[in-house]
């Protein structure tokens, strides 16, 4: 296990785009995790000048590193605390979507027949409804309903439970081709049941697809959460990057020329999304063992002997 991890790293480290993607994602995760250590302030603290007056819309040259917003709060602090919210929503919703999508895709593809029909019609229905308006309605309605859950949980669930459709289709089509392969017949000939075949023969084949897609879905989830929050459906007590953008536009950052208010959260979203996309593409390539062949090494023990002498 350890050796294969080392091997994995050895190959991964040769891929510059993959390294860049990994760096982008990991740096954002690190900033979120170590937020208190990276800033002396708290996101709700109001910055004041030497005379005790609130610093509103202070540019980075006056208050470093990224200036302050309309209420005098430190943008850098808001940004790294916002990373916690954006990334949590992104990762949780991404994992839920992948889990549901993989489950539906594998079940539909492997069993076929009416199971496939039912699951794919559900998928079709979800696919044809435009997702942003649907999510707006769902999030807004659910928040009205006094469910005693945090608005963030609602957003995570809505994104996670709506964004599995393309994954399900992708995985289903992959499973359809794999289950017709002869090694699946062989597995049946061995006496394997459905569970064994799916676990040992289907899943390892689509795992690269699942992993790569998870990373890509995470980036989608982050973008969608930003969109919802920008439209005012975020949790104002736990501002994400989208919420920051919403604040910036609400409070006329653009007319005030306070580019330091709206650029950082926008760039942060790009930063993580780009990282996820680069990482996803590289992982998909790497996790496919057929592409990582270290071909026949020069090893005496590896030479085959004719069948007749091999006894």
């Amino acid at each position, binding site marked *: 296990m350890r050796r294969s991890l080392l091997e994995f790293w050895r190959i991964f480290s040769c891929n510059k785009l993959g390294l860049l993607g990994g760096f982008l994602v990991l740096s954002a995760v690190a900033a979120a995790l170590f937020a208190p250590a990276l800033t002396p302030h708290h996101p709700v603290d109001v910055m004041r000048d030497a005379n005790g007056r609130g610093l509103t819309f202070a540019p980075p040259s006056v208050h470093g590193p990224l200036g302050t917003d309309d209420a005098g709060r430190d943008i850098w602090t808001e940004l790294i605390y916002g990373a916690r919210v954006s990334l949590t929503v992104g990762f949780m919703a991404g994992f839920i979507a992948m889990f549901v999508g993989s489950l539906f895709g594998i079940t539909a593809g492997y069993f*076929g027949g009416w199971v496939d029909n039912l699951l794919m019609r559900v998928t079709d229905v979800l696919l044809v409804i435009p997702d942003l308006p649907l999510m707006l309605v769902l999030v807004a309605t659910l928040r009205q309903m006094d469910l005693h859950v945090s608005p963030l949980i609602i957003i995570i669930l809505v994104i996670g439970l709506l964004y599995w459709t393309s994954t399900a289709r992708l995985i289903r089509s992959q499973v359809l081709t794999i289950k017709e*392969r*002869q*090694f699946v*017949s*062989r*597995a*049946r*000939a*061995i*006496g*394997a*049941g459905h569970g*064994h075949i799916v676990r*040992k*023969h289907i899943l*390892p*084949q689509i795992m690269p697809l699942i992993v790569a897609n998870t990373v890509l879905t995470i980036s989608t989830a982050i973008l969608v959460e930003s969109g919802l929050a920008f439209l005012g459906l975020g949790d104002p007590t736990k501002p994400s990057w989208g919420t920051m953008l919403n604040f910036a536009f609400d409070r006329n950052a653009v007319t005030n020329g306070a580019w330091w208010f709206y650029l950082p959260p926008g760039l942060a979203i790009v930063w993580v999304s780009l990282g996820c996309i680069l990482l996803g593409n590289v992982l998909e390539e790497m996790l*496919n*063992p*057929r592409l990582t*062949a270290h*071909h*026949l090494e020069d*090893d005496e*023990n*590896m*030479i*085959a*002997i*004719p*069948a*007749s*002498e*091999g*006894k």
Partner: protein
Amino acid sequence: MSERHPAHASAALAGTADPIKRPILSVRHLTTEFIPPRGMQGKSARALEDVSFDVMPGQTVGLVGESGCGKTTTLMSVMRLLPSTGRIINGQVNFKGRDLLAIDERQMRKVRWREMAIVFQGAMNALNPVMKIGDQIREGILLHDMLDREAAEERVGELLEMVGIPRARRDQYPHQYSGGMRQRAMIAMALACSPDVLFADEPTTALDVMIQAQVLELLRDIQKALGLAIVLVTHDLGVVAEVCDSVVVMYGGKVAEYGNADQIYNHPQHPYTQRLLASFPDVNTPTAQLTSIPGTPPRLTDLPAGCRFHPRCDARVAKCSEVSPPLITISEGHFAACYLCHGQEAHF
């Protein structure tokens, strides 16, 4: 499967049978159809009709015939591994005292690999490309709880060495093996649970002649050492002559002729068998002209009335295109389905 015929399984059926020995596997009246997938136009295809033969312990039976005559379908029907469009509509597969077509899927799963294993046509496709060879050989052993992990590992090593592959290559993937090695690994895999019957579906197709000889030799050595019965599907009559005790000649999903190797080679009765033999080179008469059989095997969705071979047969009589000829007993253990043959109608 309501109209199943009563079994008359008797050891005297197979030509070479020692009368005391009972067949380990006897296939009776096996009839299989492929139905078109739902929503698709088309007729169902009768891939097998009334196929019967016996497999004696420790012997090799050859299934021969042109492509598409039902050889592989026979194996898949016996192992109940037909694709979802395939249906066994009649017949019995008596194996070690029970009818495999009557037991449920769970019991069938226990029979597979532990009691009957198969070497698939084209080893590359039958091996999982992302699983180590050793793990694939071990899979069946662990699945049937034959051995614990450590002992299974030792068994994998033994099996690999038995087929002439160094143990060190246990951890390699199929693409790192050569074609012949993959086929040998498939054989090692099939032997993992010490089955009683081994099905070999064209094990030498797509291998070069040297490797073909090696693989056949390996199969023969293994049979000698382990005493298992082999059902060999092939269209290479040379291979059949070399390794088979009895031969089933199939045409269009039916048994055309069935007998021991000597009967089939030296006294072929069915015109199809005769033409098939004439189309193969013979060392004893190297100057003889090779002949081909004009035409192609019938489409299974559009079978000719009467004898399925009659459109290509140069010895046909009027009756041939009307009623399908029954299997006639020519001599003990030798049967042919042709009106030109004389004898009692055979009852299986």
